[in-house]
């Protein structure tokens, strides 16, 4: 991670953290209802967490990419 994270980068990491918290969906714990006629609500919610993760990681990759790591790897390894 870069030392100074942009506002968008902070938002992206915040979204990842939010998804990690929402993953514990205790409110669905005993909910056996079915949506769209076939999908248990607990499974639908967790599938949405997966989709949300893809969105969050897209933002992290765009807004908080560790550029310095790649630059360091490409420098001559005189100390290797």
């Amino acid at each position, binding site marked *: *991670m870069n*030392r100074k994270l942009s506002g968008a980068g902070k938002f992206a990491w915040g979204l*990842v953290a939010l*998804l*990690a918290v929402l*993953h*514990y*969906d*205790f409110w*669905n*714990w*005993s*909910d*056996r209802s*079915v949506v769209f*006629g*076939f*999908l*248990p609500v*607990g*499974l639908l919610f*967790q*599938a949405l*967490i*997966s*989709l949300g*993760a*893809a969105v969050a*990681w*897209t933002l*992290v*990759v765009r807004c908080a*990419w*560790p550029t*310095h*790591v*790649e*630059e*360091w*790897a*490409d*420098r001559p*390894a005189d*100390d*290797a």
Partner: protein
Amino acid sequence: MITALLQGPPKSAVPLYVVGVYLLLLLGFSVLNSRRARASAGEYFVASRSIGPFLLLMSVFGTTMTAFALVGSTGKAFDSGIGVYGLMASASGIIHSLVFFLVGIRLWAIGKRFNYVTQIQFFRGRFQSDLLGYLLFPVLVGLVIPYLLIGIVGAGSVVKGISGVPTWATGLVVCGVVLAYILTGGVRAAALANAVQTIVFMAVGVLAFVLISGSLGGVEQATQNVVDNAPQLLAREGTIGHLQFLTYCFVPLSVGMFPHLFQHWLTARSAKTFRTTVIAHPVFIMIVWVPCVLIGVWAAGAGVEAPGGNSNAVLAKMVGMQLKNPWISGLLMAGILAAIMSSLDSQFVCLGTIFTHDIVVHLTGDRFDDAQRVRLGRFFIVAIVAVTYLLSLAPPPNVFDLAVWCFSGFASLFPLVVAAVYWRRATAAGAVACVLVAGGTWAALFYDGLLAPTLAGERIGEDYLIAGMMPVTVMIAASTTALVVVSLLTRPPSSATVGRFFDEAGPGRR
């Protein structure tokens, strides 16, 4: 209608022909692509660090999705319901990508800069400790063997369930085919085969989902059967505990210490190559796991019985419902085998690589040339596969449980890799203590939770928990404590070592 479908028509040989053709095509494809691998050890072991974004995504995903994801998840959903998805799949979508981003990219950079090929080389360099390397070697090999076992057992149970072929024969064929393309092509062959096989098993998975739901009267009817006959599987209440659910999140940390995944990371052309993998991994997991979990609970709703109480066989039994069309059954079987083989190949290559580099080359220096090193790697691969195959002849009763134990072992070593890339004060003694404590706690809990009951002939119906938590929690707490306490009590690493891995522009910069 369900009863009639469950009985099914007599078994046909056509599915075996379909699988045979698939295996031959795969072999041909891999051999054609293996020419470059003969050039050097660098090509054989890390594909000359030239793999692009698409191949990296496919090889990393194909490697992490094994019998655990298909056979195991279906069986576990059959036993415990839809909560299985939250336990492993959605958690992995967050945590796997997190590990790829925070650990994988840094390890790639260090591997490229210092020309590392294996995990053990990295840890030896970072902690300046030979002992750590010799200690990690048996631990990593010992944890990969059960992982291989999961694949071979899973393949055997699927093929037996669909076509009646004995598990020993399936294991022999699967090991033989994977060995054939790995021994010729190395990690590039594994990556290319993984790409093909990942596409095959994802496409076939969707096909299986459509066909199986159709055979049950449609998705709505399939779920209605669960509402009527096994409603407890539609929620987590009564099947999964709160602490158990929360602490399951530690299990996917294992990807940070999989030696075969480390090797795939090193094949990346650049750090940017990781981007596609980090983003697409959660969605790919969803595409594979949602159908498998639904098929598992639908099987319970339809009154399917796991043969001998072995939930490994549930997926095969559900696919067997399609035996009306043996061509489709063959295609489904090939897809499931593709998922399993796409993990086995990377694990095989990785074992050969760490044996060659971390034991042979480390002990003998430049005595062996490139060609000899590749030959030694191949020899070790064959030996390990032979041992694993023999172990598979006495298969464990539940693929999912064995996999979780295996992943827990790798996860217990996760603090080591985090400290190696982020904590300057971590010392060699601390790292050794971490490995010893992780190995010791894993062995003790594995014996108590799985091995002893299995040897006593007991059926393990529920997860082994400690105060309601997954055992991985205790393992990680113990290994982290050992790492931190022993590091703080011993002399800090030299400034030269710290400067090498943590300079101002380096990956360890905070």
